């Protein structure tokens, strides 16, 4: 490499490198440091102790919230997958006209451009006791009086989060299905496999990387959400991000909040690296 080339590489590389170090690596490190600090109300003092982490283990409410968050994120990813897979499959294998395919693809991605807060808000207006669904059911006579079962519970949260994050499931599955050569399905049919067997033995395994990528995205995003719980979650709908937010807000215990955030970061990184590993293994098997 000549000196000029090296200089040019450095010029291209240094702004993003500097940015990621200053605004990502340093803040994450500081968060980690904070998680060992002590709180002496109303200030935080530097220390190196595991008290915050011990507190998370000692008080069962943290474990309960963590398990609830994992459960909700899992359910959201599951329902998003159940809806997204047939949709992507239909687009890739059943729709013949490219323009129709593009339109239907855009139809599912387009809501990402509409404010996330408003997409969650609209479910609040639909599901509430005075809301659209209740008043509709009462006016048609299906319900005799408005019911409060629709809003402020975990089901409402799973519904809202599935609605909000489903595009992240469709996109990677669509990309994976699109890459499957039609000849493989034809070969499977020629060899006498019926359509179900072809799906289970050819299509599904080859789209697994898309499923894993979509599942990872949806799970991580739902796992870290604190807006849907606030809008539609109710008392038993508090998620881990809400607890972190309150430690940085009203509860004013940044060190404890940092420790919780570090736990969350570790879980998310674990999921991402497991998914990366799977993708590499999967890619190896395909070639």
């Amino acid at each position, binding site marked *: 490499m000549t000196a*000029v080339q090296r200089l*040019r*590489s450095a010029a*291209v*590389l240094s*702004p*993003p*490198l500097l*940015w*990621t170090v200053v*605004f*990502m*690596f340093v*803040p*994450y490190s*500081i*968060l980690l440091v*904070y998680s060992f600090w002590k709180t002496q109300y109303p200030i935080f003092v530097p220390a190196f102790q595991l008290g915050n982490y011990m507190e998370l283990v000692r008080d069962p409410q943290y474990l309960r919230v963590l398990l609830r968050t994992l459960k909700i994120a899992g359910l959201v990813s599951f329902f998003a997958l159940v*809806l997204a897979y047939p*949709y992507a499959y*239909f687009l890739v294998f059943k729709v013949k006209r490219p323009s129709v395919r593009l339109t239907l693809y*855009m*139809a599912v991605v*387009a*809501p990402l*451009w*509409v*404010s*996330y*807060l*408003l*997409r969650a*808000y*609209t*479910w609040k*207006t*639909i599901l509430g006791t*005075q*809301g*659209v669904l209740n*008043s*509709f059911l009462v006016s048609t006579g299906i319900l005799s009086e408005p019911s409060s079962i629709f809003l402020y519970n975990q089901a409402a949260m799973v519904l809202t989060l599935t*609605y909000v994050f489903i595009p992240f499931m469709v996109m990677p599955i669509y990309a994976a299905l699109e890459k499957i050569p039609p000849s493989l399905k034809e070969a499977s049919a020629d060899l006498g496999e019926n359509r179900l067997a072809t799906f289970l033995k050819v299509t599904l395994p080859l789209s697994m990387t898309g499923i894993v990528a979509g599942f*990872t*995205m949806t799970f*991580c*995003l739902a796992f*870290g959400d*604190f*807006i849907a719980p606030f*809008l539609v979650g109710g008392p038993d709908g508090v998620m881990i991000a809400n607890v*972190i*937010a309150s430690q*940085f807000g009203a509860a004013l215990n*940044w060190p404890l*909040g940092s420790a919780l*955030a570090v736990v*969350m*970061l570790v879980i*998310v990184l674990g999921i991402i690296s497991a998914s990366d590993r799977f993708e590499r293994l999967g890619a190896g098997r395909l070639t």
Partner: protein
Amino acid sequence: MSVFEQKPAGGIAPETDRADVAKRLGADAEAAVWYIGIGAILAFLYVPIGVLVAYSFNASRSLSWPMTGFTFDWYAKLAQNEQLIEATWNSLYVASFATALTLVIGVPAALALDQIDFPGKGVFRKLVLLPIALPGIITGISMLTMFRLFGFNLSLGTVIIGHATALLAVVVTQVYARLQRVPRSYAEASSDLGANGLQTLFLITLPNIRSAVIGAGLLSFTLSFDEIPVTFFLTGRDNTLPMYIWSTLRRGITPEINAVGALIVAASAILILISAVLLRDRSSAR
């Protein structure tokens, strides 16, 4: 009708006929199931947005069925809501600068990932792409702790830095994906013809990824305009539009919010059309 198209006589014919009909019925039934299922998913996606928009025109203050009449009152109220207008300007300001920053940092990052080998490239890639799956709250509080530790005051400026960091990954993935599809031979031909690296960059590489850069910029702008989790922790006294909506939601729901929502839906639709045109631009160029 020609002889060849007539049904062959004999015992087999009705059987095949029946099998054919059964097969066709089966195919029809299958198609019907597909259409109903896909229609249901589209309804799931769009009925809530329809509800959001429809109730912005509803005469009554309560959001219940049946709708009571048509009005533009809620929009008129918006036009007089100074806090909301100020918040909208703040959001436009934040989104513009955050988008400019993500492009200035993100395009070189994508170029570096595509074209340069350097030690620590793997770590760099992981770090840059992390915010795509990383919950915004972590970006928000980690930057909050840093700004506080170094004694910075929170303002729209810190929000801009937070957005740029969180959205960098969006720009990098989109631009990098396009760079991967630009044939290497273009740059090779360019340098064979005597162009230097800078000329190749500005005359060959950047024009080839132009629509991806614009598309990524539009997406980044929209996402920044709507952003909450990072803004929540990094904003000072000034509200952005989503933060303003969030604070009104604490007091209860009103059709005014639906009116804001309908306007955002309309603006998003326009941006989507622009990016769809850019996408078509790309496919016709191939």
